[in-house]
């Protein structure tokens, strides 16, 4: 009698564990990219500060910023729209070749349409990398999946 009880208990625990592991694996597998609207930024700074750091030491900045959620403030220099209607907001000043290019998340694409060039903005996005000015086009820091946030 006692033995049977122990066996039942073991079976029960094994079943529970299997379900737990299964659920974890399922969730992990289906995990979506973090929703940036709610995510806390790892760094809050101005667009000029970030470009300055990247221009001074690319390797150190790559280590520090790549893959991190950034909250950047700056002026809208230009808005690029590609043939599929995706927007890229370019932060920077018109006198400077260097800029931060924020590729806009599809969830925010509609709102991006109404932004005004020259106005100031705060953008949250994931730091994707730095393109040094090796092709003569100015150097850029790239933010991916960006959204504008209201302050």
């Amino acid at each position, binding site marked *: 009698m006692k033995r049977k009880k122990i066996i039942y208990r073991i079976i029960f625990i094994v079943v529970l564990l299997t379900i737990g592991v299964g659920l974890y694996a399922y969730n992990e597998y289906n995990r979506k990219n973090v929703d940036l609207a709610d995510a806390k930024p790892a760094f809050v700074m101005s667009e000029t500060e970030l470009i300055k750091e990247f221009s001074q030491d690319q390797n150190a900045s790559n280590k520090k910023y790549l*893959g991190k959620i950034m909250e950047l403030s700056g002026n809208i220099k230009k808005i690029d729209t590609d043939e599929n209607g995706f927007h890229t907001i370019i932060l920077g000043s018109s006198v400077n070749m260097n800029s931060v290019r924020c590729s806009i998340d599809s969830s925010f694409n509609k709102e991006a349409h109404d932004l005004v060039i020259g106005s100031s903005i705060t953008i949250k996005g994931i730091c994707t990398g730095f393109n040094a000015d090796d092709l003569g086009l100015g150097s850029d820091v790239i933010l991916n999946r960006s959204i504008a946030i209201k302050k």
Partner: protein
Amino acid sequence: MKISILLIAVLSIASVSNAQKFFTKTGKINFDATAPKSPENIDGVNKNSICVIDSKTGELQFSVLMKGFEFERALMMEHFNENYVESDKFNKTTFKGNITNNESINYSKDGVYPAKVKGKLDMHGQTKDIETEGKIIIKAGKVQVTANFNAQFEDFKIAIPQLVADKVAKFAKINVDCTLDPLAK
């Protein structure tokens, strides 16, 4: 008088269409590494690739940030960055090459031109010669470049674990679609 106006008009049009270099910073490059029997798609897209073409010499350059690839599943993106392309170590993939039949492309006349491209692809610390055919489409002063080619993972020392070999193919089909604007001097 009339002739001089005409001349000015012709010259100004000519100077617009005679831009030598074309570039984009929003080029699209996507890859598909789905194995034939895989139940799910293994693919990602990069929407901020840099591409530069010199229309005089036919030189062609691409620069792609590996962390800029977007995936549907967060887990896939992490595996891609951490295990396969090791984007912390090798954060950029570049291609430098030439359009070998550049003389047959008229950059100032709208049309679809077949293009042969030959060059070196530098990815994951390895450099490999790539030869492919694509299209150059000239329309309203813009240059659209499209091409497909395969990159074998073995050539770039990207190891695919046995565990996922039924899902991830041995090569990636790479699809390039960039629209380039003339570079204002």
